[in-house]
């Protein structure tokens, strides 16, 4: 009987399958696991063990990367629940959200065109605050209401917002250099 390399990441780190996780516990478990499987622990051992170590360390890194940040964690959780967040196909969004998106985008575009770094930084902060609220909503849908279809739509909204956040970052970077 051997431990399955493919086992779910929540289980791998000893966490419940929930959106809200104890981040400190996740990090501790991550460090503990890497301390056991990392290739640096196997450099003096047989090649068979080195190979396994690389597979496991790769898997543990992948798991940590997936669970550490809320958006990939939510997508992964929904996938485990059998709900495809439909990142590529199902992009129908509520008109209200699309409207809001357009307003954000225009504001970013204006600030970028005018070279307003200060304004861009402010937009960045406001957007971050806003996404925090949306993440709270997502947590409720996932963990309290178990409304996975609703959660999937929230995830899609957050994807839009994240993309926008990147655009602001890129614009800021372009202004700085």
């Amino acid at each position, binding site marked *: 009987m*051997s*431990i399955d390399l493919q086992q779910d990441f929540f289980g*791998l*780190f*000893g*966490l*419940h399958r929930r959106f809200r996780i*104890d981040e400190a*516990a996740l990090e*501790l*478990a991550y*460090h*503990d*696991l*890497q*301390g*056991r*499987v*990392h*290739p*640096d*622990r196997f*450099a*003096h*051992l*047989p*090649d*068979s*063990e080195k*190979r*396994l*170590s*690389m597979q*496991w*360390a*790769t898997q543990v*890194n*992948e798991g*940590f*990367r997936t669970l550490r940040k809320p958006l990939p964690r939510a997508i992964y959780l929904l996938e485990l629940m059998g709900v495809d967040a439909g990142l590529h196909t199902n992009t129908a969004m509520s008109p209200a959200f699309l409207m809001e998106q357009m307003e954000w985008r225009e504001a970013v575009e204006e600030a970028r065109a005018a070279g307003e770094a200060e304004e861009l930084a402010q937009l960045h902060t406001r957007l971050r605050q806003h996404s925090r609220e949306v993440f709270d909503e997502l947590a409720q849908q996932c963990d309290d209401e178990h409304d996975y279809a609703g959660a999937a739509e929230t995830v899609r909204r957050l994807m839009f917002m994240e993309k926008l956040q990147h655009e602001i*970052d890129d614009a800021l*970077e372009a202004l*700085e*250099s």
Partner: protein
Amino acid sequence: MALLHIAEPGLSTEPHKHRLAVGIDLGTTNSLVATVRNGIAVCLVDEEGRAMLPSIVRYHADSRIEVGRSAAVAHATDPRNTIISVKRFMGRGLKDVAYIESMPYDFVDAGGMLRLRTVQGVKSPVEVSAEILKVLAARAQASLGGELTGAVITVPAYFDDAQRQATKDAAKLAGINVLRLLNEPTAAAVAYGLDNAAEGVYAVYDLGGGTFDLSILKLSRGIFEVLATNGDAALGGDDFDHRLFCWALDQSEIDPPSSEDARRLLLKAREAKELLTACEEASIKATLGSGEKVDLVVTRDQFASMTKHLVQKTVAPMRKVLRDAGLAPEDIKGVVMVGGATRMPHVQRAVAEFFGQEPLTNLDPDKVVALGAAIQANVLAGNRKEEDDWLLLDVIPLSLGLEMMGGLTEKIVPRNSTLPIARAQEFTTYKDGQTAMAFHVVQGERELVADCRSLARFELRGIPPMAAGAARIRVTFQVDADGLLSVSAREMSSGVEASVLVKPSYGLTDDEIAGMLRDGVERASEDIDARALREQQVEADRVIEATLVALEQDGDLLSDEERAAIDAAIAETRQTAAGHDPRAIKRSTEALSRATNEFAARRMDKSIRAALAGHKVDEIQV
């Protein structure tokens, strides 16, 4: 089999034999070798007591090869055969190297990595670097009194795959078993962190002779976790020398100098630069071959202003690395300075200004990288003790991707991903009946393939003919703990597979390395068969050793029968290794490796179960 049996008198309480392992800082300007002796990391010195070996290699007409200080003497008189800063050429083509036109070498453009024509023939930068490594390995063996188990070799964090592979190839040519390639700033952080029991987020600013690295590390409970890294693999003290050199030419209104004069003047510029760290002004005096004289005085302020743009070039990476790590300057607890060029006052000022704190200078910027590498080498070689319960988690510095239609890059592995990492992506055919698909692997952050580094090209053939878009070709990138990439592609419905260990474009092929090895052996008038035999014996001994360690730790996981099978494979390997047939040794060694597969899986299981059992306790508290 006594090859690796070395008793260290100071370690009689140690139940296992102490394996000799070293850390090597293969620098642009200076190289060092260090080891852990009686629990303390120390740099190993030459007969004159010096730790630093100038990274200079001179090829003589009479087939002698000189390395280090004595080679430096011919710096200006025989510049074509006296190679300095060869690290700038590792994994690089002619068009990649800055101000190559003012360099005194006879370059050969063979496509891919550049070559240098010397009196001893055409040399690859890999061979030149191997000469430096050989001297350091010899120094280590003489000083430690035995054969090395292996070495950790440091590379700039911002080195790409081609440069890393070239470094590993150089070690192979020098006959060194590479335990790991370690990023220089990470090595520095280990030496600093362990020495000062540091906890928190630290920045390491490493400006050497030819490379600039900046890494952000989180140190907590013995974990050294690199959060992000950035840098410039072609920026260092050399560029400051070059700027001052150009200024001197300009001021003295002399024509483009001969290569000898250029070297002479460049050396003077470097001396002046170093002097300006301690003094307010320095003079640059030289008499050129033409009889013209250069006689100039440069002040610290003048120097600072003429090199401001170079210091400025380190600021953008500082900003980017913090953004990638999601941190602000005030989140940084301390800034560790590494590399000789960080001694320049205006560099220190710029760093202090950016981070809003004075950088840490309570460590030797020249030695700290080698010491950190030695500490890791000691652990990797299997000398880990209870108290060595620390671990490095490093990242890949530059994104890896594939070329798509229209010359655009598709990123597969994003920069700053923790190693090791694997990523797969699926592609499909675009023509009916298409049976082959070509892939171009690139590294870099830019959108256009032309702006990224080309790593390798390969083809998947034998795809069964299908309608366009029906084939499912899965391409997997695996980056190991050395930061080296291997790529494989597989057509999912038929199982046709192709894989490459990324090499060609800017690296050496296995055949080339084999050829260079042969040449080296011939020159050393060593018997090539003897060498092959010895290598197989060392490998056999390594595998037996490793298996014994595993058996001692977890022998109870095996049934008597299984144990007997492994014991038999060990006995067989021992027996062949005592003989003289390298192929037989290889066969039995591989058989032994195979015999431990199941055992390895069980050991891994056991270890992971123990970890899971540990978390269950936490879970109850949630």
